């Protein structure tokens, strides 16, 4: 294949989904009974039409008409061979839907895609892994699921095991592995795919720092070898480092197409708008697992009310409200704070997690960031909840809320009355101690 040839051509791609409709409230027993009896007919109609959309012409503006929602609207772009394309956007912007269409997991509602070459996609690490199988067996299973042939897996088997560093445990069932080992193995298989076109969805957010570095290096190798890569991520530094082009999606539309630098800046600026608070009214669509679901997440000021801007001296609270449905789990709520370059400043975990199994109910957990720690600017917050008891993540909403910190010069700030530029990713107000030696010469004390 010649360099620069178009390998992916996306034209007017649109996708509609049906979401759950509000349950009708009944104001009389008779109505409720009728509704109950007619339920099978209603259910049949509902299920039969899950994938049919004859009423599409009525609303294309994007607001949910009855129970429909446009995940993608008229997206068009093309990708040349050898490009590493970053796909950036808020949660719900349509990135994963776009990938699912490109990988034929789901069909488009409108539009057309043409792809030249073999595609391998990585929407998740360890798809198909089964706990009862050994590491060796899972490598073959996962490898063939991802599209390799047995011969290919044979050829790369040693490299894969080496990359994951689990040689000793090859023939033990995966259910005995630590979660880190299983993840490394899964990623090792995925890292050795050799398709012409590779589509990757945020799988770099796994493992410890050393392993992540390995993964990023591997992605760079793949990019350098002339393969085409589509890369969806919230990890802005990774996007800037790995990609040579990027597109920005928002609410299903393609907003921008340009250099990674421009796209990242645009995404991070408040034009695209990440709110200071988000809530999920419908428990069925709120993020969560079997143990807990997230209902609201917000940035609050010292008084406890939602704010989107705080003074640099003020404490700012990150708050999540979640419903726990299964009792007896030890839960770890976490927040991660990023600056507007996408750098992770810190993560924080509720210390209370040791070891208090939670009862069922709604919880509100707040993490208070002291004043005079963050610098001025915009900050993006991810929130997550882990069940320590089963080692499962209940939800992980990336960069779901944001807030601004303003530094007006004044008393009690690190800046004091200095009007010049102050750099740094944090701006703590530290205690300084100065001593001087009143030695040989008497000095006028100057106050």
């Amino acid at each position, binding site marked *: *294949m010649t360099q620069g*040839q*178009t390998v992916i*051509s996306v*034209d007017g791609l649109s996708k509609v*989904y049906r979401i759950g409709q509000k349950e009708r409230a009944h104001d009389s027993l008779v109505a409720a009974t009728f509704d109950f009896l007619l339920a099978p007919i209603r259910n*049949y109609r509902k*299920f*039969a039409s*899950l*994938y049919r959309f004859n009423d599409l012409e009525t609303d294309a503006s994007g607001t949910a008409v009855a129970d429909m929602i446009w995940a993608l609207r008229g997206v068009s772009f093309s990708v040349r061979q050898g490009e590493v394309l970053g796909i950036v956007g808020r949660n719900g912007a349509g990135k994963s839907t776009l990938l*699912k*269409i*490109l*990988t*034929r*997991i*789901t*069909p*488009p*509602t*409108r*539009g*057309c*895609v*043409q*792809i*030249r*070459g073999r*595609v391998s*996609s990585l*929407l*998740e690490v360890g*798809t*198909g892994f*089964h706990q*009862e*199988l050994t590491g060796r*067996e899972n490598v*073959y*299973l996962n490898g*063939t*699921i*991802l*599209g*390799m*042939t*047995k011969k290919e897996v044979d050829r790369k088997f040693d490299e894969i095991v080496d990359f994951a560093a689990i040689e000793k445990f090859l023939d033990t*069932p995966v259910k005995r592995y630590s979660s880190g080992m299983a993840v490394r193995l899964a990623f090792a298989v995925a890292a050795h795919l050799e398709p012409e076109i590779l589509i990757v969805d945020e799988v770099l957010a796994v493992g410890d720092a050393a392993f992540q570095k390995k993964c990023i290096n591997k992605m760079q190798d793949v990019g350098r070898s002339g393969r085409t890569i589509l890369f969806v991520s919230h990890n802005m530094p990774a996007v800037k480092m790995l990609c040579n082009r990027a597109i920005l999606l928002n609410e299903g539309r393609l907003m921008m197409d340009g250099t990674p630098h421009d796209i990242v800046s645009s995404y991070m600026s408040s034009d695209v708008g990440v709110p200071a608070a988000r809530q999920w009214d419908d428990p069925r669509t709120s993020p969560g697992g079997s143990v807990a679901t997230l209902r609201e997440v917000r940035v609050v000021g010292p008084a406890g009310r939602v704010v989107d801007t705080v003074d640099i001296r003020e404490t700012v609270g990150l708050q999540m409200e979640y419903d726990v449905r299964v009792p007896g789990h030890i839960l770890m709520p976490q927040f991660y704070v990023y600056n507007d370059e996408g750098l992770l400043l810190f993560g924080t975990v509720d210390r209370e997690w040791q070891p208090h199994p939670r009862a069922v109910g709604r919880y509100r957990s707040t993490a208070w960031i002291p004043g005079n720690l963050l610098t001025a600017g915009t900050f993006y917050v991810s929130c997550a909840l882990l069940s320590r008891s089963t080692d499962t993540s209940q939800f992980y909403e990336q960069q779901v809320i944001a807030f601004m910190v303003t530094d007006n010069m004044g008393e009690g700030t690190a800046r004091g009355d200095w009007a010049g530029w102050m750099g740094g990713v944090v701006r703590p107000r530290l205690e300084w101690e100065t001593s001087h030696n009143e030695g040989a010469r008497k000095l006028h004390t100057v106050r």
Partner: protein
Amino acid sequence: MGVAGGGVAPMSAQPAEGPVTVIRPSSAFAWADVKELAQYRDLFYFLVRRDIKVLYAQTVLGFAWAILNPLIQIVIFTIIFGRVAGIDTDGFPYILFVTVAIVPWTYMSDAMVQSSQSLVTEQHMLGKVYFPRLIYPLTPTISKLLDFSIALLLVIAVLFHYQIAPTWNLLLLPFFIVWMVAIPAGVGMWFSALAVRFRDVKFAMQFAIRMLLYTAPILYTASPLPEKYRLLYSLNPLVGVVEGFRGCLLGGAFPWEYILPGLATTVLLFMSGVMYFRKMERVFADVV
């Protein structure tokens, strides 16, 4: 690979090189993409292996269950229908009569149930990775063959005990085995596609399997059935398979009037199953 819905727009200014996959909303009718299935045969193999290993993982008895399961059924049915009810079975001892039929029945019922649930059980994979969807319902029909083969040992043991000599009829056994596999494959394709949207299928299946046991001449012989009902009765493919197995293993004339109608039904079931499944498979990930 490519699903053509009308003319394919050529990619601009490119020399024609390499296979182009086109993804469009509407799918024209497509028969099974055998080429694609062949590409994924290694995956098929590993999925079958997985099913087999997982089934008996951490059990003490392991594969012995493949024999114990039908054996216990045979003992119970022999006591109830053979001794107590005293059902006449064309001159053969009851236990022989029922063993030869229970083994293919066990295979078919297990495979049908697992195949119908295959898409629902694996819905996670459905939404995360693409491989030919037909592999989902077809995997259980192959993995259950291992249990079937082990249970055949039981059949051989019983045949040996009653000193039934093999006849030329045995040559037809492979044909009946293929037919035996085609039935759960056809049922599985239909019902797995339906189960994705209508979970009722699971409950309907559980009920249907229990009833189906009595619709085929497994526990009883069909000879007393009056002639005018024979065609209707034989449209049930299970009848044909069971009579076929009996004919192969016990010798004697094949009752073709009981066998051939079921064959036609099976062919229809299988082909329509493939068509329906292929029609619906693109939306599985959306509606499961």
